[in-house]
């Protein structure tokens, strides 16, 4: 008989628990705008690089570095990984590291990078 009362108390107290959670952590709107501006600049740099006449490994390296930077910034700020529990990042990392490892093995054994 005590359990329903406990559950009701939990539900009653839930909004109080929720109010602090809604205001804890997380980037501000200003941070979001700054990150978006940086992402825009990086995208513009990528497009510029593709038109710049730079070729070969230098172009590919620069493009990949820019895209990795954008990737990490979206994960960290827009998807809140920087502010959230580390276990979310660990789970996501499992997928990204697993996929990257597996497919790099496929590409290397297929000699794609030697073409």
């Amino acid at each position, binding site marked *: 008989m005590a359990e329903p009362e406990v559950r009701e108390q939990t539900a009653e107290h839930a909004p109080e*628990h929720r109010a602090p959670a809604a205001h804890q952590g997380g980037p501000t709107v200003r941070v979001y705008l700054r990150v978006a501006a940086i992402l825009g600049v990086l995208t513009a740099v990528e497009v510029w690089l593709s038109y710049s006449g730079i070729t070969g490994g230098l172009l590919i390296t620069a493009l990949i570095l820019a895209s990795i930077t954008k990737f990490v910034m979206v994960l960290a700020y827009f998807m809140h990984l920087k502010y959230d529990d580390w276990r979310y990042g660990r789970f996501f990392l499992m997928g990204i590291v697993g996929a990257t490892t597996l*497919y790099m093995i496929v590409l290397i054994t297929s000699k*794609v990078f030697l073409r």
Partner: protein
Amino acid sequence: MADAAIAHAEHETSTGLPNTKLAMWLFLSSECLLFGALITTYMLYRGQSEQPPYPQDVFDIAYTSVSTFILLSSSLSMVLALAAAEKGDDIRMRLWLLTTAFLGMAFVGGQVYEFTVFYEEGLALGTNLFGTTFYILTGFHGVHVTVGILMLLGLVGLSTSRQLPAQRSFPVEMVGLYWHFVDIVWIAIFVLIYLIPTPNPT
């Protein structure tokens, strides 16, 4: 601590984390494998098409750059929707969610237009290896964006009919995670498929 409060509000979990959010991250983790496979397949067959049209014949980088900026902007509007939801500002939340959906529709519309242009230039699904791998990869991405748009519109509908839970930032955050993931997949596609030059056919 924020997640613990949500977990407590839902029900107790062994991790102290809300199951929904954990499931979403695991789902996104599995999506890395899906898109990794599609991108790898494209790269495996890059430069191997026996007949035109080839990527350099059809790609319009300027046009695709605009699409990329549109999708990037939609990520910004998505986080602004989340910020509004966290402040309890339902009207602003709906406004930013609708903006995100609209930008997503603009992106998908741009992709559809691009596909029709490519088709008119002779690139169909079965024309060559480039056509097959390109359309499958970007097509899957486009479907994911479309599903995201439906989720956004669903959130707006639920908000309008006041069916969102008291902590409405949580469902907005979940849809946001999916939407941002779709954006970062496009970051990879844009660079690997569009910007990095394709070697001449062997």
